């Protein structure tokens, strides 16, 4: 969109990159379940949902590429680990099933809150994409709400694993709403209809109510680590090595 001034365009690029990286990295983490999920049917379901997230990342990277004149594949695969801007929630390895479900539950609701808001964005291509993504995310919400309830009611072991995972992931989950350096520009331009902090509290209320309904403890610490999108882990560096292995094998190849 050529009518955006440089400052607004850079701010929008920061938002798109954060969202795309969230979807991209989570999609890769959960694709790690392919072949080893608890039952065959869930194996297919989890793999399919992970593919959906890669698809959303692709759409977001393409929007970003159009905005900045870059190549979407290069943005996705051509950065060193420290160049990624996913939330700290996506810094953790797959771990066990309860952990993966806990992360998905926390993320899907954060993403839903974010997309609901962006559906009214003043930047029409982003609003259109948010509406489209929400249609697919409806099923993701249903699926991970269902798994949360099941693990909560699935006996002492699954319940304990689930609550421990939620407790452990809670601080990093907040960072989906970590402030962006240029957020004020986005809010002024009505590209981001509401500040991320407003969205974060909406999300806390929503997941809090669902956890309560499942008789799970609701974590109380609502501290937000502002660096959540820039600090990365060894676990992420490993995943980065995995997902860039093929593209990195022949940097100049045409795929």
């Amino acid at each position: 969109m050529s009518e955006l001034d440089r400052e607004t365009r850079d701010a929008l690029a920061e938002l798109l990159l954060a969202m795309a990286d969230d979807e991209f990295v989570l999609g890769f983490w959960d694709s790690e379940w392919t072949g080893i999920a608890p039952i065959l049917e869930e194996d297919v379901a989890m793999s399919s949902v992970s593919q959906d997230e890669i698809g959303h990342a692709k759409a977001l990277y393409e929007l970003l590429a159009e905005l900045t004149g870059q190549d979407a594949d290069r943005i996705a695969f051509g950065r060193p680990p420290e160049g990624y801007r996913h939330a700290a929630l996506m810094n953790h390895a797959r771990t066990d099933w309860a952990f993966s479900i806990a992360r998905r539950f926390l993320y899907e609701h954060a993403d839903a809150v974010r997309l609901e808001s962006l559906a009214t964005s003043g930047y029409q291509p982003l609003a259109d994409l948010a509406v489209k993504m929400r249609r697919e995310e409806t099923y993701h919400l249903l699926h991970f709400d269902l798994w949360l309830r099941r693990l909560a009611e699935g006996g002492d072991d699954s319940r304990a694993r689930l609550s421990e995972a939620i407790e452990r992931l809670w601080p990093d989950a907040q960072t989906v709403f970590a402030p962006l350096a240029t957020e004020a520009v986005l809010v002024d331009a009505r590209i981001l209809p509401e500040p991320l902090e407003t969205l974060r509290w909406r999300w806390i209320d929503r997941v809090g109510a669902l956890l309560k309904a499942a008789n799970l403890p609701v974590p109380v610490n609502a501290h937000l680590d502002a660096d959540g999108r820039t600090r990365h882990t060894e676990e992420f560096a490993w995943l980065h090595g995995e997902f860039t292995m093929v593209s990195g094998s022949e940097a100049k190849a045409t795929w």
Partner: protein
Amino acid sequence: MGSKDRVWEVFRQEAEGDPMVHGGSVKAPDEELATHYAREFYGRRQESERLWIVPRDAITELDDPDLLKPPFDRSFKRPGGFLIKHKLEAARERAGSPQVDEVGE
């Protein structure tokens, strides 16, 4: 899960107005998960307009050969089971219409 799993038969409709056709089956402990899995197995590529998800034990099966394939000639119960060629020829002659080959059997 595991021991509590039930089998669900999935029927799919490819386009609005098409008949529901058996697609296959999924295993799931209840209707809610069966619906999710049916969606993943028979709808995730946007190949279905509609799915029916039916617990296998709700299906009444009939496969008794005495009832379905009795040993006597039942060809007269099929539309093509009657030899009508000669009757048709006679009828055409009476009506004065031209002969047509290969009508009936």
